[in-house]
């Protein structure tokens, strides 16, 4: 690949995918906003518009990536374009780190400041005395998700059960994708497909366990999105992480197909590497989650 010379810049041709993407995202969010505000039983256009938007977004991804893959395989991208793609992916992952940072920030703030203050610590003493004088602050089940126990009593997920299994699953998937990468660089196709396939399986297994854990939480533990700030941080952090794992698993599956079709060479496989970086990012976020949401 890359039979273009490095000292000639490459500027891609015009494309209609960006405007399709903008329209698709607009359709999705406008539909979602309308749907969220629909009265119960009201037949609005929101739901239909939202799902239309989702289909458009998926179609857009398919079409845009298809044209990029075609151009890549036609050898249009030189080393400079490759570097731009790498920078783009790394900074995108950095933005994702900051997105999770907002929710981790909320978790730490609730644990370190707002819940103890409601229990009368520090400068929360008056709030405690006048509003919730019987509340004894604690994190998790014994704190009841805040002074008014808005979601009712609940139990928390024990860290050393399913979450530990999930940690091991994700850590192993980090190993398998690295083996797959080495196999790709060494030109061993069989090993590549086997270990990349294993990574996809491990990702799916993680998602299965996570959904099982959610059902357990809702049905047996009464741990829900309404369980005070504990439930809010628990489900938003693990939920957004789960969405990222879902996305990562789909990306890995697509890369597996591309490997099977022989799209990648030993030293020209940025698509593979980008997904691998993303997968490691998802892995690291999970380690932080396991530590701060489940264990501590």
């Amino acid at each position, binding site marked *: 690949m890359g039979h273009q010379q490095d000292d000639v810049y*490459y500027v*891609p041709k015009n494309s209609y995918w960006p405007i399709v993407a903008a329209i698709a*995202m607009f359709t999705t*969010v*406008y539909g979602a906003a309308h749907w969220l505000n629909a009265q119960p039983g009201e037949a609005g256009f929101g739901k239909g518009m939202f799902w239309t938007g989702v289909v458009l977004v998926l179609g857009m991804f398919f079409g845009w990536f298809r044209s990029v893959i075609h151009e890549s395989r*036609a050898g249009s991208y030189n080393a400079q374009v490759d570097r731009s793609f790498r920078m783009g992916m790394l900074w995108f992952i950095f933005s994702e780190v900051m997105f999770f940072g907002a929710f981790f920030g909320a978790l730490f703030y609730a644990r370190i400041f707002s819940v103890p203050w409601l229990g009368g610590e520090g400068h929360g003493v008056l709030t405690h005395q006048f509003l919730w004088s019987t509340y004894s602050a604690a994190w998790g089940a014994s704190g009841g998700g805040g002074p008014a126990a808005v979601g009712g009593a609940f139990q928390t997920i024990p860290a050393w059960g399913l979450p530990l299994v999930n940690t091991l699953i994700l850590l192993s998937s980090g190993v398998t994708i690295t083996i797959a990468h080495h196999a790709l660089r060494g030109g061993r196709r069989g090993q590549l497909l086997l270990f990349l396939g294993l990574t996809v399986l491990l990702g799916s297994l993680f998602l299965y366990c996570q959904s099982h854990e959610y059902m357990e939480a809702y049905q047996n533990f009464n741990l829900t999105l*309404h369980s005070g700030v504990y439930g809010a941080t628990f489900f938003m952090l693990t939920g957004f992480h789960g969405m990222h794992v879902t996305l990562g698993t789909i990306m890995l599956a697509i890369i597996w197909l591309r490997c099977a079709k022989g799209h990648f060479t030993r030293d020209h496989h940025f698509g593979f590497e980008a997904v691998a970086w993303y997968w490691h990012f998802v892995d690291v976020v999970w380690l932080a989650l396991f530590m701060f949401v489940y264990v501590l």
Partner: protein
Amino acid sequence: MAHAAHDQHDLHDHEHHGPPKNFIERWVFSTNHKDIGTLYLVFALTMFFIGGSFAMVIRAELFKPGLQLVQPYFFNEMTTLHALVMIFGAIMPAFVGLANWMIPLMVGAPDMALPRMNNLSFWLMPFAFCVLLSTLFMPGGGPAGGWTMYPPLSLQGESIAYTVFAVHLMGISSIMGAINIIATILNMRAPGMDLLKMPVFVWSWLITAFLLIAVMPVLAGAVTMLLTDKYFGTNFFNAAGGGDPVLYQHIFWFFGHPEVYIMILPAFGIVSEIIPTFARKPIFGYKAMVFAIASIAFLSFIVWAHHMFAVGLPMGAEIFFMYATMLIAVPTGVKVFNWVTTMWGGSMTFETPMLFSIAFVILFTIGGFSGLMLALAPADFQYHDTYFVVAHFHYVLVTGAAFAIIAAAYYWIPKWSGNMYNETWGKIHFWSSVISVNVLFFPQHFLGLAGMPRRIPDYNVAFANFNMISSIGGFWFGASQLIFLGVVIHTVFFAKKKSPDRSWEGAKGLEWTVPSPAPFHTFAVPPVINDDELAHGHVDH
């Protein structure tokens, strides 16, 4: 789908020599940094007038005490949307438009690093504002809880869902735009264009782009929590559930303070290009200017709670954030002194871009000083949420950011259009703006110190005189910007006077080595860098 085959067909035909003839093909499917830059600038100007019309409603209502023209809820919608439109619709897209146009020209690149993503970054913006502004025409009305969207107030009504999603779209747009700018600067520079030979404008955008990628996701997270609190029963900001409304303010301002610098650092960059040109001297202290921008950016992450001195923070936090905030005066002072020193002993001429830049230096400094007053936690208990704050941030955003953007438009429009603007009308625009803007905002300092709260449609009769003066200044300033619109339209479509390649006698930098107007494609092969042509080619390292 006819294009798919077309796409494949001439994959290797990268050399276009002019813009596509088809209007849609050219402007909607664009991968050209100049066209996308123009789209951004036109969009920003449009939003500037929409946001400005909201401000006119506010000033008209405040012309006299008592409820005069509009209902209080509509007034609150106007204050909220004026801010959102001006920040996310006018100032930020204008800077991104300038970055699109100028950065590739300044570093010798043929285009942005990721041109198609660039196009998506732009096209998300009109859709985001359709989502946001459509709420004005809904039965429940638009967002009216202030642009900061503090819960629980912002969670009342239905518009919050639309506002949150609009913010998401703007955030995605900003992040993609910022990634593009970083990749362009780090990867697309012509050989020989060392980092420390880049124009200060390019440096300011490199650092701004980093800030954008770091904080726009945090805003996305904050508003997502608003959305789930309202519609999905979470308790992030509900004390009964163990949450805290103040938590929102912390997360919001962790975004919000760097955001303030996102709106001023590129302005620093612009002024650092214009003043050396018209003083006919290289910028004084090039490296100090770059390091000052970087240190301001770093400090912006550790000062956010100075927006929250009055919410009941622990004493230690108040003191930390007070001193950290005052530290920012040091690098900012370095910049102001360096601009003044650049002018010192220069052969100065006072064309319109230079006039706006000098006004920037003086009036932004006034805004900086009132900021320093607000940074004092004990004093802020008095100033908090008064018109003093309004005066402060309008000095830094209108006479700061907006003046720099206007200066940039006058400075580079000969390069963009190939025509020279009408200097007389430019000067009329300047003097009309600079006088009226002070009539508009200076009395607001006095109103604030006397205790007039912000975001209210009615006020004590004691504040009547200064409000009337401020409103007169407001209408005058708003009308002055119609002159700007006229000058721009005249320059682009009707002006007879052509601009040479180097539009200004003292201008240095790669952008002045290409013809005016800049051809559709520039630097298809990397230019040979001649240090004498660069503004900072001979800086001692």
